């Protein structure tokens, strides 16, 4: 699979939210405003990219030579949690402006299963380092794209007359389902 195909596949065709239903928690929780969606999306891209590259290095640099491949799940979880703590600490100390924009989303990312999914997927698919890098940008870029599209729809919904029983999350889930159906039509593209 060439790199461009891998990127498009990760971003649109195998979209992590609409085809795998992973990362639904921040998708529903942080999509009420466009501003929040962009902040969360950028933070996820950064963390997924760095965590995936680190996980890839840990797996092929440490676990494989020591024949400890079975430990990938526990080590990746710990590595991601430690990395997010480090990023939060670093931003707190060095960039208050960035903390103001992204800091609030960092604790949410620790519990975002999308980060772990991408790290594990890179290993399961036996991607090289370059493929890992491309996949680790494409997948969270798709996450951000969906978050932004969804937030604009929810912003428009706020001004509309939604039946009381469907207000809030119920109508959001219905919209997410319709978006998933629409995006499933891309599945034969690659």
């Amino acid at each position: 699979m060439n790199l461009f195909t891998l990127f498009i596949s990760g971003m649109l065709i195998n979209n992590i939210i609409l085809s795998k239903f992973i990362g639904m928690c921040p998708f529903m929780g942080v999509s009420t405003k466009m501003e929040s969606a962009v902040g969360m999306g950028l933070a996820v891209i950064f963390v997924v990219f760095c965590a995936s590259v680190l996980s890839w290095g840990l797996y092929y640099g440490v676990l494989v030579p020591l024949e400890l491949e079975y430990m990938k799940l526990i080590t990746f979880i710990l590595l991601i949690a430690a990395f997010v703590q480090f990023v939060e600490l670093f931003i707190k100390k060095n960039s208050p402006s960035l903390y103001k924009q992204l800091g609030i989303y960092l604790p949410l990312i620790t519990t975002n299963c999308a980060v772990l999914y991408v790290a594990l997927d890179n290993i399961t698919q036996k991607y090289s380092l370059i493929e890992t890098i491309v996949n680790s940008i494409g997948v969270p870029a798709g996450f951000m794209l969906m978050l932004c599209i969804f937030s604009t729809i929810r912003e428009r919904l706020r001004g509309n007359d939604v039946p009381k029983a469907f207000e809030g999350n119920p109508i959001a889930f219905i919209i997410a389902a319709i978006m998933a159906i629409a995006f499933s039509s891309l599945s034969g593209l690659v």
Partner: protein
Amino acid sequence: MQAFFAILIAAVLVGLNAFLYIRNRQTPVPEGCEDIKPDCAACGIGDCALRKKFMEMKEEENGNR
């Protein structure tokens, strides 16, 4: 030997995690960022600090009404 390395790797990562967690909590939030309002309504993670803040904010709003 393999078990020793497995325990060692896990211990190092747990230790690193604990160290960074404690350092992170000890580091003060930058000026002007103390009162950032979270905007996450649907997430159900009970022990998330943001959610606690959000629920407190909601309770305050309800109390003011």
